[in-house]
């Protein structure tokens, strides 16, 4: 059995769903060790065990920026234990630790994988060109390989394992490479979390102006949905980055995704095309979003959305 190490970060006192997805996949590939980043607790370690970890290394950087010291400590562990595969998510701290670790040890990194196998060599699959093509890649190296996996590539399924022993890892002083976290700001959010919402209503340039996003918010409210956005309107400063869906933003797979005034750039499609049902409203009948839509409305969002909101509000009496 191959040794597979899985990076798993804490959010609100528990492992993130991304970490649990990776643990679930790792069980198929070998013996699973979790690399847990956060304050840690008995409950959190029990969850890691439930999803298949048989051992845990625990990293708690406190108010140090994690990447420098965690990558340094992890590099020592990797050198002494030589796991075959290290799985990280395509997420902020995951990318930082994986990048520094790989540079430190000269390891090969495969990013943006949607599937991974150990078949002699480590083999990964990647969606490219907005998901229209699938590339298969391999690494010709018997040593540890680092793979970064896109969120929601695998379901998170518990297996009912017992609580593993968590070994606290001492973090070294990284001197000139150290950085400190001196404050934290949480953006206020209404409605459900974007990544976990059953319904997402998202807006793009076709909304015309920042005020246009209010139409998206109104429909979302009537549906109890989360709101999302394209990179274009996030870059334009209409909505915060936390709402961005796509390659550089969040990956979502809701039951229903309603794309309002979104043309469907590759960048965006890769973050939402696996939604169960896709509804698109756009003026341009040639917009690429229509190629992934189950229902495409060729029309003006400023006309369709107010009527849709009214119809939905009438049903719920809101």
């Amino acid at each position, binding site marked *: 059995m191959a040794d597979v190490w899985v990076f798993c970060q804490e959010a609100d006192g528990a492992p993130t769903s991304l970490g649990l997805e990776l643990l679930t996949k790792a069980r198929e590939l070998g013996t699973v060790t979790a690399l847990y980043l956060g304050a840690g607790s008995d409950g959190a370690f029990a969850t890691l065990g439930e999803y298949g970890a048989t051992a845990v290394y625990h990293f708690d950087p406190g108010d140090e920026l994690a990447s420098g010291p965690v990558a340094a400590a992890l590099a020592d562990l990797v050198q002494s234990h030589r796991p075959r595969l290290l799985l990280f998510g395509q997420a902020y701290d995951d990318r930082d630790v994986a990048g520094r670790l790989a540079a430190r040890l000269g390891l090969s990194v495969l990013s*943006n994988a949607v599937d991974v196998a150990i078949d002699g060599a480590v083999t990964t699959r990647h969606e490219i060109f907005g998901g229209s093509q699938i590339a298969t890649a391999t690494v010709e190296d018997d040593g540890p390989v680092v793979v970064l996996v896109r969120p929601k590539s695998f379901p998170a399924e518990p297996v009912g394992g017992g609580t593993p022993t968590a070994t606290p890892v001492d973090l070294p002083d990284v001197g000139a490479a*150290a950085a400190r976290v001196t404050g934290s700001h949480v953006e206020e959010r209404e409605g459900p979390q974007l990544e976990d919402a059953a319904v997402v209503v998202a807006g793009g340039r076709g909304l015309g102006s920042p005020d246009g996003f209010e139409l998206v918010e109104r429909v979302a409210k009537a549906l109890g949905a989360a709101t999302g956005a394209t990179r274009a309107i996030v870059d334009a400063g209409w909505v915060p980055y936390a709402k961005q869906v796509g390659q550089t933003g969040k990956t979502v797979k809701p039951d229903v995704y309603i794309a309002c005034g979104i043309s469907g750039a590759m960048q965006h499609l890769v973050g939402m095309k696996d939604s169960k049902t896709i509804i698109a409203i756009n003026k341009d009948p040639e917009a690429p979003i229509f190629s992934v839509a189950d229902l495409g409305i060729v029309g003006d969002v400023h006309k369709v959305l107010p009527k849709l909101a009214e119809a939905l509000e009438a049903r719920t009496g809101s």
Partner: protein
Amino acid sequence: MQVVVCAKQIPDPANPYELEPDTHWLVRPAEQILDDTDRYGVEMGLQLAQADEGTVTLVSMGPAGNMQGIRQALAMGADKAVIVDDPALRGSDALTTARVLAKAIEREGFDLVIAGTESTDGYSGVVPQMVAELLGVPALTYATAVTVGDGSVTIHRQTAAGYDIVEAALPAVVSVTAGVVEPRYPTFKGIMEAKKKPVDTLTAADLGIEPSLVQKVVSVEPAPERQAGEIVEDDGDAHLKIVELLEKVKVI
């Protein structure tokens, strides 16, 4: 302050990308543009350098082509460019790219290195962190705001919930998100001046790097297509079609 900005020339994403048949590497035409992501890095670098009469050096890896993208960044105001163009580096993975960039950056000298969080054409998303590790400095990543003062750098670092405030002593690597600043458009004067600014072209050997390819793309095939949906023209009642579908899939 010596600011180095990592900048990449990429095929214009407005045109469909093509792959070379055997290697599955991206076809790179002579005419490449400055990655839009890097316009933010260049602007941030210019603003920070201008605040204390510093310099901005561009460092880039990839086929130089006709240098349109690099000239674009020079026209914005960068002082000079170093581009590592070597056929032996084609198909390089993130780590080889980072090694090349780190060597070129060391050669130039730096107080602050600025990069985008990921390129638009390769998007491995780990190169700035690798460069920082190779240079032995902190990587302050996903910055939505950057300030420099008194030998240190402070950023707003994007998180899933909002942002953290992170600070470190210089020298450091900072990766910036799009939107960190509003990139300027080159002026006519800037465009004319860019033609005379120094551009060094280097090979891997100039930096003491022996390229090796350990990763390869073995195949590329079309993804299973999603079944085509129903497309209707809005006749004033299209919202009812949406309500009907939402009922059918039981979300209302």
